[in-house]
């Protein structure tokens, strides 16, 4: 993944408007909401140090674990903020209105979060898992020095891509590269100061790429994704944590990856029409990064291999249409797997609706 694209991903942020839950308000009038710009790659509880002072005058003397909800759904703290936003906000609202709680942690729904340490270890466990997928063992992560571990974590907290790139390069987590990525990386790798892991393993021709996919299925028949009922339970989200196999010499795209993970939706072929191919303006930086990737493909004269048709005819006659895509499915996986993608699929004959948000594991995402 080239330096520019990487910067765009790291700089992506979502404006949040955070309201204190009424049960924890002890003053009249209630405090105004806090406005915070949250990094897409960050984790919500890490915002506590900014949020607490804002509500300090009204908070009860004893506060417990911080947690967030959106329209009644407690938010899983280990999912990066950008993924939560793409997954849960059918029609992106800005600022994103969240409710913060400092008491009454819903332990039956959320895994306990003992502060920053829990998030750090969740990230390291994800790193271990991704390392295992890529290298067949987790040794590089397990043997990481204490100093590197601390530095890596600080770089995630502070959003310092330069430090992250330096420390994570020692983990040798370069995912398999296709020729297009290797070619496009030549210039930037030479001039850039970042070590690009895709170059390290650029000679490898087959391998597994870590992917985590969150799928939102809507059973009602709706015309527009903004009509989708809010997600009130995690039971409505399917979580697919499954590596995809990249084959030798094949131009492997995000489309291919999603197709291998969700074959049901791709039994026919697939159309991405003009409108849906248009990258949704989640934020300007991300738009630009998508374009950067697309332009690069054009310059390299790469043929877009994904075949798209008007709709996907499922075997049970459900017709599934893409309503919206965020992220271009024809982008090489090695580029797009590192970003949050999102698309909605609409079914008209059989009421079936699906939204999907995917991401690579944290560390490949930040390569």
């Amino acid at each position, binding site marked *: 993944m080239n330096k520019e694209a990487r910067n765009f991903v790291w700089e992506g942020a979502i404006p949040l408007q955070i309201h204190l839950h009424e049960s924890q308000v002890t003053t009249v009038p209630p405090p105004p909401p806090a406005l915070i710009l949250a990094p897409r790659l960050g984790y919500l509880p890490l915002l506590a140090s900014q949020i607490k002072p804002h509500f300090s005058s009204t908070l009860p003397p004893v506060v417990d674990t911080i947690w967030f909800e959106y329209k009644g759904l407690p938010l*899983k703290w280990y999912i990066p903020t950008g993924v939560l936003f793409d997954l849960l906000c059918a029609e992106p609202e800005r600022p994103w209105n969240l409710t913060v709680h400092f008491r009454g942690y819903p*332990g*039956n*729904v*959320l*895994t*306990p979060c003992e502060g920053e340490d829990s998030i750090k*270890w969740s990230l*390291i*466990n994800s790193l*271990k*898992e*991704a390392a*295992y*997928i890529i290298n*067949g063992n*987790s040794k590089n992560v*397990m043997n990481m020095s204490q100093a590197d571990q601390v530095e890596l974590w600080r770089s995630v907290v502070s959003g310092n891509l330069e430090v992250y790139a330096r420390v994570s390069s020692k983990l040798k987590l370069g995912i398999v590269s296709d020729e297009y990525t290797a070619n496009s990386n030549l210039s930037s790798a030479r001039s850039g100061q970042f070590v690009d892991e895709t170059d390290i393993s650029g000679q490898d021709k087959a391998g597994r790429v*870590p992917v985590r996919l969150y*799928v939102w*299925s809507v*059973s009602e028949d709706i015309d527009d994704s903004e009509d989708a009922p809010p997600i009130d339970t*995690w*039971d*409505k*989200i*399917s*979580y*697919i*944590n*499954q*590596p995809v196999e990249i084959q030798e010499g094949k131009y492997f795209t995000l489309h291919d990856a999603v197709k291998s993970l*969700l*074959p*049901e*939706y791709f039994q026919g072929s697939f159309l991405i029409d003009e409108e849906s191919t248009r990258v949704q303006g989640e934020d300007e930086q991300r738009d630009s990064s998508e374009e950067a990737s697309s332009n690069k493909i054009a310059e390299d004269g790469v043929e877009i291999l994904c075949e798209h048709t008007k709709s996907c005819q*499922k075997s*049970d006659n*459900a017709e599934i249409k893409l309503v919206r895509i965020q992220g271009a499915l024809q982008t090489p996986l090695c580029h797009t797997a590192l970003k949050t993608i999102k698309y909605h699929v609409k079914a008209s004959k059989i009421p*079936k609706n*699906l939204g999907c948000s995917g991401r690579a594991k944290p560390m490949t995402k930040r390569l």
Partner: protein
Amino acid sequence: MDVLSWDGTISSREFRVAVRAFAERWKESNPDFPPWTWVPSAKRHPGLTSNQIDGYLTLERLCLTESTEKDIPFQEDSYEVTQVEKEETASFEEEDPADNATLVERHSFGVHYYDFHLVHSASYRVPVLFFRAYTTDGQPLVLDEIEKDLPASSAEILLESKWTFITQEDHPHLNRPWYKLHPCGTSEWMKLLFQSDTSMANKGVAIELYIVSWLSVVGQVFGLRIPSKLLNYRD
């Protein structure tokens, strides 16, 4: 498959074959023990039929007590005790208000129920043990309480490595917090385990033995023992 070139992992398809073989063998050998049950999962694309049959193997409401008898349910010579526990489970399920006194008494003995789920990890390509524990009145146990149920050897490991050994994570099929034994070393020791088996050195890797071999190791964390006749399955 040659055991020397095998890397200790199994695919999800092999996992399904292995857990079915294990569950059937378990039932045949130990009709008095609680059975393992395969639960098909609807987590992939609810409402749509999937070609891929995903799921997990479960053994639920297994009784462990806080006493020294914690390894008894799986000991071969302990049918009697197992029966008693089965009755306890049954009476709990049929509980009525008049039964309160008994329940309180039983609770004072610290009866804990354990649910075990065997899930295949696509990342590590090995089985992963997910579990939860709760009291007779359904209160979930936290890790500190669970540790008291475990044999001393497990408690020591937990102490040394809190984060890599047992972690609390979302159950991949149920989307709720469960405990799990971290699987990152599993393929390594499964490989060693199978290589040390002389019969497999000759005949190749027996996938149908994978689960019973695996459980004979991870079960030790809970003091669970696998009846030895299950391990001699192939002969």
